[in-house]
Structures are given as structure tokens and as C-alpha cells.
């Protein structure tokens, strides 16, 4: 068998490394001069249920009074009917406690992953994967985060490791385009809709003739407003973490939980790669269209 001389780019002599990279991503990492050090992970399990005080607020007889800067919109019954079977008010409000739980769970898992990478003297973490899954029983969620810690050969750094969801050729292209990865960024917003009588009837398809809505199609203002607010809040939350950097490869996931009778909650999750420009775009050639023969 022919002996293979060790390549100076491949990490050797310090035990074996582990990584979550595919073979092609691993190869691209080496090509960038990044040595994989280890698969780093972070976990955090959080209880995620409203406390008694929050439950009493959301199920009260009067609209919830949120903190001054939180999102809230109230909708009053236009019919002038007082009845236990007819809703006199409806409300959209921001569930800040859910956002807080999510933020704490995500950032704890992230910090723990980062701390493992720091222990390995890594300069960055590539190919980060994260998710949130229910654990054991309802109301308990697990925040998980994985990534491959990497080190730039012959480079000294005192900064905390950077992180990115990208790996392989996509990361290489980002560097070539002049973007340095700073960190992964993610945020959630949570808006609860307690439907007003108008929204309830529109969503359930009841009472339109009885309560004077006739046979016309109309915009369901409360529903639209809640959806727009949820998207706006999550965007605002993410932008507050950017500090004039850019966010690339954004993914917006919409989660909804229907409670019936027009009541529901919306929880958009927005995540992406915070990047910083370190050089100007070189004058790029116009893209050359190609047809691939296969």
C-alpha cells in the first residue's frame, strides 16, 4: 500500500475530530483553511406554560392590559347586545412571556454551544442546526443546537467564536462575496387573538344575517391586523440584534394554534445569518446563463 504523506491542511496529531458536515462541506471547509475541531452542542429545556397570573389575564372578563410598549388592539362589539353568548369585546395582544421563554431557551442553548466551541479554541461554528421540540409532556420544550466548531489555521484570536447556519460552498461563496459571518440570529413573536363577535362570526360563518353583516364579503380586520403585527414584531426583534449588519438567508416560519371560535395564536419564527461586509463587491460579471447537460 502506498503511504500517504499528511497534508498540512488536515488537522492531525491532536486526536480525532467530530463534525456534522457532509463530505463535500468538509472538503469545502478545508479549502477555506478552516479545520473542523468538534461537533459542539447546546441544550436547554424550558417549561412553557402561562403562569396563573397570565392565565387570569388572558381569560378575564375585561380586555388584558399589557405593558405600555407591548402590542395590543381592542375591538368592541358594534351590535349593542349584552349577552353571555355574544362577545362584547375582542383583543389582539402580544404574549411577551412566550417570547421571553423562547429567547431564554434559545440563547441558553446557543451560549452553551458557544462555550463548548470556546473550550476547543475554535474561531467559528459552521453548519448550525437548531430546533425546538416538545419534550416529555405538553408545556415542556427542548431547545437544541448543533454545529461544527472550526479553527482557521495559524490564526490567533481573542474574540468569541462566530457562527453561521451556512457550511461548505455556500459559506465559501459568502466569503468571496465579501461577507464575514457574525452570528446566527433568531427571534419569535407571539400574538394571541381573542376574537370579537364580528371576527368570530366571520371565521365560523355564523350570525352574518342576524348581526347585519349581510351577504357582503368584508376584510376580517382583527385577523389581518394580528398577522401583520406578528410579522412586524418578529422582524423588529431580529433587526434590533443586527447593529447595522446584514441578515442573509432569512427563513420565516409561521406557526399557528387554533383554539376555536375564532381564537388563535400566531408565532412566527424568523432566523438567518448575521453577516458583516469586510470588502466591497468586486465588479461582478453579468451572470452567464448555462444549460446543464445531464
Amino acid at each position: 500500500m502506498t503511504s500517504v504523506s499528511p497534508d498540512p491542511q488536515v488537522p492531525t496529531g491532536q486526536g480525532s475530530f467530530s463534525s456534522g458536515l457532509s463530505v463535500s462541506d468538509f472538503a469545502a471547509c478545508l479549502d477555506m483553511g478552516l479545520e473542523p475541531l468538534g461537533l459542539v452542542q447546546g441544550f436547554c429545556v424550558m417549561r412553557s406554560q402561562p403562569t396563573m397570573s397570565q392565565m387570569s389575564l388572558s381569560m378575564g372578563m375585561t380586555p388584558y392590559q399589557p405593558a405600555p410598549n407591548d402590542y395590543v388592539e381592542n375591538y368592541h362589539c358594534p351590535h349593542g347586545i349584552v349577552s353571555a353568548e355574544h362577545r362584547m369585546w375582542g383583543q389582539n395582544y402580544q404574549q411577551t412571556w412566550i417570547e421571553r421563554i423562547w429567547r431564554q431557551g434559545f440563547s441558553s442553548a446557543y451560549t452553551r454551544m458557544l462555550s463548548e466551541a470556546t473550550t476547543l479554541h475554535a474561531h467559528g461554528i459552521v453548519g448550525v442546526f437548531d430546533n425546538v421540540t416538545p419534550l416529555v409532556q405538553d408545556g415542556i420544550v427542548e431547545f437544541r443546537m448543533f454545529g461544527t466548531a472550526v479553527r482557521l489555521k495559524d490564526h490567533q484570536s481573542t474574540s468569541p467564536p462566530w457562527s453561521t447556519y451556512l457550511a461548505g460552498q455556500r459559506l465559501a461563496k459568502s466569503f468571496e462575496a465579501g461577507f464575514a459571518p457574525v452570528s446566527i440570529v433568531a427571534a419569535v413573536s407571539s400574538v394571541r387573538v381573542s376574537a370579537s363577535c364580528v371576527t368570530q362570526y366571520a371565521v365560523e360563518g355564523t350570525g352574518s344575517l342576524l348581526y347585519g353583516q349581510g351577504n357582503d364579503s368584508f376584510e376580517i380586520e382583527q385577523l389581518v391586523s394580528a398577522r401583520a403585527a406578528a410579522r412586524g414584531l418578529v422582524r423588529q426583534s431580529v433587526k434590533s440584534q443586527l447593529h447595522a449588519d446584514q441578515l442573509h438567508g432569512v427563513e420565516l416560519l409561521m406557526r399557528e394554534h387554533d383554539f376555536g371560535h375564532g381564537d388563535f395564536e400566531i408565532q412566527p419564527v424568523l432566523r438567518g445569518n448575521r453577516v458583516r461586509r469586510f470588502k466591497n463587491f468586486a465588479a461582478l460579471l453579468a451572470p452567464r446563463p448555462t444549460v446543464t447537460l445531464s
Partner: protein
Amino acid sequence: MSTETPIPDGSTLRADVRLAMASLENPSTSHTSVASVTSDLSIDEELNLHAVGWQPVELVSGVSAFSVPSGLWNWGQGEIVGAIRAHENAFSHAILQLQRDAAQAGGHGVVGVRVERAVHPTHVEVSLVGTAVRPIGASAVDSLKVFTSDLSGRDFALLDAAGWQPLGLAHGASFVYAPRRQMSTVLAQQSQNVELTNFTNAIYEARETAMERLQAIALSLAGTGIVQVQVVEGPMSFASHAIGFATWGTVVRLTREAHQRVEPQMVMSMNDRASAFEATTLG
């Protein structure tokens, strides 16, 4: 191999990575902008946009929901007008909101719009999410001048190179009753495998009117055509005799004297996407 095509150079890439690392440690050397940018475009799409003189500005969205008057879906003849109106209004309002959101962010258009729509028995919801873009360094425009398009950043760049311009999203929908067969027909057809013409005709009717509405919007935008037309059609899950047909696409117009032939170059891929990888690095 053409000498015009730059070949990725591993040493340049490694130099870029070192430069990037140095800039992270010394932020004063970074080229940070005053306003942050959010974009759901891939790096390829962003590079393509830059190559044709455009840049992403912000992730934007538009949503709308319109009620459908109750009791419309099960019995009747012809088109289900209340549902059609709800669908058209929801789509139009979502587009207007998307345009407003984009204009506020300083965009001149929105590319890569993802269209999500849900038709419920009681209401129709439309949600649009895309990335606002503008010519590099351009100032803001009025929201009514903002174009919307479900073309990707790459397709937008290709369209631009060919001398065409996207004008906006066109949409059309129709919901039609498939008339119930007479009892004698049901009995006669019970043991035969025959075409159910009531359903076939309903699909054709829905398709004709939905496509006409799509064309009408394209003409109102002064477009010469529609590309990437999407179609969703079939029976409504909650109403056995209602057929739905919805369609949308990007309206385009030729902005140069003639179409510019893009002359695609044929390539044969010899391996997977690791184009910048040197096999020798594996050792």
C-alpha cells in the same frame, strides 16, 4: 474552456477568509452600512442581483383575509360570486400591503414572493412574503410604483438581461358549482365508467373565467405577458359540488426595442457542486 470565465482560486478564498476574520476582530475595518438589511435571498441570488445593478433592502410581507358569506358553497348554479370576490379582494389587499411595506423600506420592487393562500368555507386568506429590492443607491419611490414578482433573484436578473421588466403579480380565481345530476342520470350511470360532464364542464368554466381575470390584470398593468403562471385547481374539500381554480403569475413587459438573446452556454457537469475544492487537500 472559455478564458473569460474566472476560475475559483483556493488561495484567494483563503485570503478572503483571513480578511474576514481580521475584520471581525477589528470592526473599524468593516464596511458596515447605516441601515441593516434583511433578505431571504440566497447568496447566489444576491450576487446575481448585484450583477444587474440591484440590491436587497428588506424582508417584507402582506396579508389579508376576506369573509365568504355563509351558505354559498353547496347549492346554486354558475359561479360562486361571494367566494370569488373574497379571493380577489384578499389577493389585491395583500399585494397593496406588500407594496406599502416595500416602499416604506425604500424598495422599488419585491422579488421571490412566496404566495400562501387558504380557502376556508367562511373566509379566504392570502399571505405574501418576499424581499424588497432597489437599484443600487436609488432613493425611495411611491408604493404604487413598487412592482411585485414571484420570480427568484436569479430569474429577475435573467429577465433583466433579456430586456424585460416585471410589472406586478397578476391573479385570477373562480369557484363554480358542478350541477348535481338528475336522479335518472345517476341511476343510468351507476354501473358505467363514463365521463361526469357536470364536473368537466365546471372545471372548464372555472378555468376560463379565472384565466380571463388573470389576463385582465396583466392588461391593466400594461404588460405584454405573464411568466411563471401557477395553477391550483380541483374540488373544494368542504363542498362536494364546488370546483375551484386559482392562478397567479408575474406580469412582464419588454423595455428594450427587442428581446435580447441571452445565448445560454451549454455545460456538462462532471461532478457535484464542489467546484472550488482541490482534491489534493484531502491528503
